[in-house]
């Protein structure tokens, strides 16, 4: 698993919002979806997912309801709310700007005299 990258602090929330934006998911599903959309490149500690989910619910960005999973097991499903969708858009823009800035900073060549 050494090729998997540690998450930058603060990015877990963004990833969860993104994963859920593609359709309602239960907790384990979120984990699988993140793995899938990141081509298994990001490592998320399984238990650490839940405090983040709860935090997002409390901030009103997600809403949760109990239902039945494909495995026919009881599970809590998470859905994006309207403020959640807005937040995802903002955070994505923010991230793009940051990534571009860092990329351009790293691409800088020594100036020629």
């Amino acid at each position: 698993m050494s090729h998997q990258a540690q998450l930058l602090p603060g990015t877990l929330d963004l990833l969860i919002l993104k994963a859920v934006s593609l359709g309602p998911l239960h907790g384990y599903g979120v984990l699988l979806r993140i793995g899938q959309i990141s081509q298994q490149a990001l490592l998320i500690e399984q238990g650490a997912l839940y405090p983040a989910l709860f935090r997002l619910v409390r901030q009103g960005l997600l809403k949760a309801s109990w239902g039945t999973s494909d495995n026919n097991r009881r599970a809590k499903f998470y859905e994006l709310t309207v403020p959640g969708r807005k937040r995802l858009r903002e955070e994505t823009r923010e991230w793009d700007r940051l990534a571009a800035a860092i990329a351009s900073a790293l691409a800088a060549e020594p100036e020629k005299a």
Partner: protein
Amino acid sequence: MSLLTTFQSLAARWLNRSRTSDDIEEELRSHIQHRADDLERSGLNPAEAERRARIEFGGSQRFREECHEALGGNFLETLAKDVRFSLRVLRKTPGFTLVAVVTLALSIGANAVVFAALNAFILHPLDLPRAESLYSVHRVTDNSANQSYPDYLDLRDRNRSFEDLAGYNILQAGVDTGETPTRSWLLAVSGNYFDVLGVTPHLGRFFHGSDERGANSAPYIVLTHAYWHSRFQEDPGVIGRTVQLNKHPFTILGVAPPAFRGTLLFFSPDFFIPMVNQEQLEGVNVLEARGTRWIFMTMGHLKAGVTPEQAAADFTSVGSYLETTYPKEHGHWTYVLERPSLYGEYLGGPMRAFLTALMLLAGLILLAACANLGSLFAARAADRSREIALRLALGATRLRVLRQLFTEALLISLMGGALGLWGSVLLLDWLRAWNPFPQFPFYLPVVPDAYVFGVALLLTLASGFLFGAVPVRQVLHTHPYEIIKAGSTGRAGRRITIRDLLLVAQIAICALLVTSSIVAVRGLERSLHGDFGFMPKNAMLLATHMDMAGYRGEAVPVMQKRVLEAMMTVPGVTSVGLVDWPPLTTGDIPGASVFKDETTDLRPANAAVASLIFKISPEYFRTAGSVLLSGRSLTWQDDKDAPSVAVVNQEFARRIFGSAVDAAGQYFKRRDGTRVQVVGIVEDGKYESLTEGPKPVMFLSFLQSPSNQMSVVLRSDADPQHLAAAIRSKLGEVDSGLPYFIQPWSQAMNLVLFPSQAATVALGILGMMAAMLSVTGIFGIAAHSVSRRMRELGIRMALGAQSREVLQAALGRPFKLLAFGSTAGLILGILATRVLSFIVYQATPRDPLVLAGSVLAMFLLGLLATWIPAQRALSANPLTLLREE
């Protein structure tokens, strides 16, 4: 998120705590099941799949708590959990808990009491509107605030700095409300007094400046709330009633509010009258006498924008006007503005210094208590290092562990603080009701107000955090793996730590206080059996004032003689004498300058001595038990028609005549030129205070120098209660309208014994607290040292060490600290005795009992403190110890 939603969430989580927990539980379980399903699909058997899923998930307890935290309802929940856990831990070690709580209760209680005194006497002495601009006017020259009535009027009308100027004087009067007349202390005040202070009546009305229209024009009374309560049972119907003061009718106008007892602390008068009526109480009109400075104090509010310095300069300029206008009555005086509550700097200065020092000492005691509890806590944390390591290994964060330890510390400090505050409130209640000097209206206005509670709470929380913080570093540096592997490791530190120094300082203070309190106790014991030049034992005093029953001039000695004769008939009384002020019952006995017979220029500068004066009846010496050394006593023939005579004490004779042997028969002169013949020499004694040096004293006959103030001394070995009853009934036969006060002479001496008694009690209490702190301090350090080195001790024993050697290894250091601190404290104590000798009678450190007592006390304290750790060290069983690790 808004505050409201946070709060709602908090409340909702709190209310649905168990539901939330179940919810989290179920969701985490569902996650693990889903993961297990996946693993099963990849070919694992169900049991193995579930196991793997659990392992992958990680420390579920930690995530559960984090989930709670993320939901926002965690704080209260964690707190409740921590409190429950802490209570369980504290219950498991009741000894530790008790020591910690009692230590804190004592130190916080002491701080609360001292702060209450500081608050009541210095910080907020007067509960009056605009108290900050209220100043009294004092003369710099003689450090006094008294004024004559004409001077007061001039100062009031000619100054430009005060809004108005009020004055008051302290008087006694006989009060007759139709029942038995009683003696009362009162304030004779200027008419504008209440208006200047801004006090409003609780009931009825006050008198004003406009009520004053010359001498005896305003026969009005304003009662204090306390007197209205005790004498009139708060009857609102007293308004408008007439009562007799010294046989003159006065009308009750109103009642002052409960908090108002005049502006002089410790003095609680019964009522107020206008000072223009002073003649009716004092018998002489002094309203016109510019040289008679009978007004005790004057005060007022500064005008806005005027500084105290400017106002003082203003008063000084009025003073120089008076000096040029009335040169006979005035010197060159400068004025200064001070605070009225403690007679300016005269009492205020020493009081502030004393209370500040006491506050500092109390603060130090609390600090030392915190240091001790801190080291006890650190020792406990070290003992519990396994528990802590286990919790860390199970996934608890260090913050969480620290939080729990702080909860424990705060719980202890809150329990201690609550207990301490409760005790101090009880003590303050008792102090307010306490009057060690029944002849004076003494009142300690120590009320536990919001300030006191606030400070106590603040100190409680601060000390909890302070001693809770000591083990923090230790916990932060705990490596769970190392500890569980190796057991607690003890590095035997040889470094001198701050904790060691603090402990030595504590022990030194303790030894100092122990030595001082033994010195004080010995001094007090001596002073109770000392040689005063009279025998207070079995002597009863009947104090009264002839003015109170309306006796004036010639009638006074006649009436006094009748009282003496009546007292002779009281059963069981062997002898009766009269004296104006009995020795050692007041610190302020009248005196006068005395000149040698050959002196002709009787200027004050030429006086030979300043002598105290007692006015006595012929039988006084025999009754008081004073020994006449030569010559004769005064007789009934030494009356106002006979030549002036006096009995003097040895010191007087030595100072005036050079020797006490042949003084009888010689003459001295008074200020007015009267030649007085010495007829007898009486032994020296103590007159104003126990610690005073020899003082020259003359005894004059009350027939030649009349005095309205009188105390009858009755010698009898009858029971004081019965005797007092018999005296009352005999006195009633002579004049039922004469107010009086009866108490044993030994009780009346409380006033002069008070400083040494107070010093003894204060030193004793502080000494006990210091002793207790030293015990817990030594105990903490010894227990810590033993518990850290248990394994080493076990090995030593296994290798054949004797008990003595084990003890030496375990307790050598605490004992060294004890010995060092005690020695320092004893030396300090011996030095401090010099200071003590100002307050305590015959305080001397060269008393073998004091030294032996102190050394023994310190030794016992050390033994007490190290007993339990020593037992523990000796019980070190090498086998179990080594196996346990």
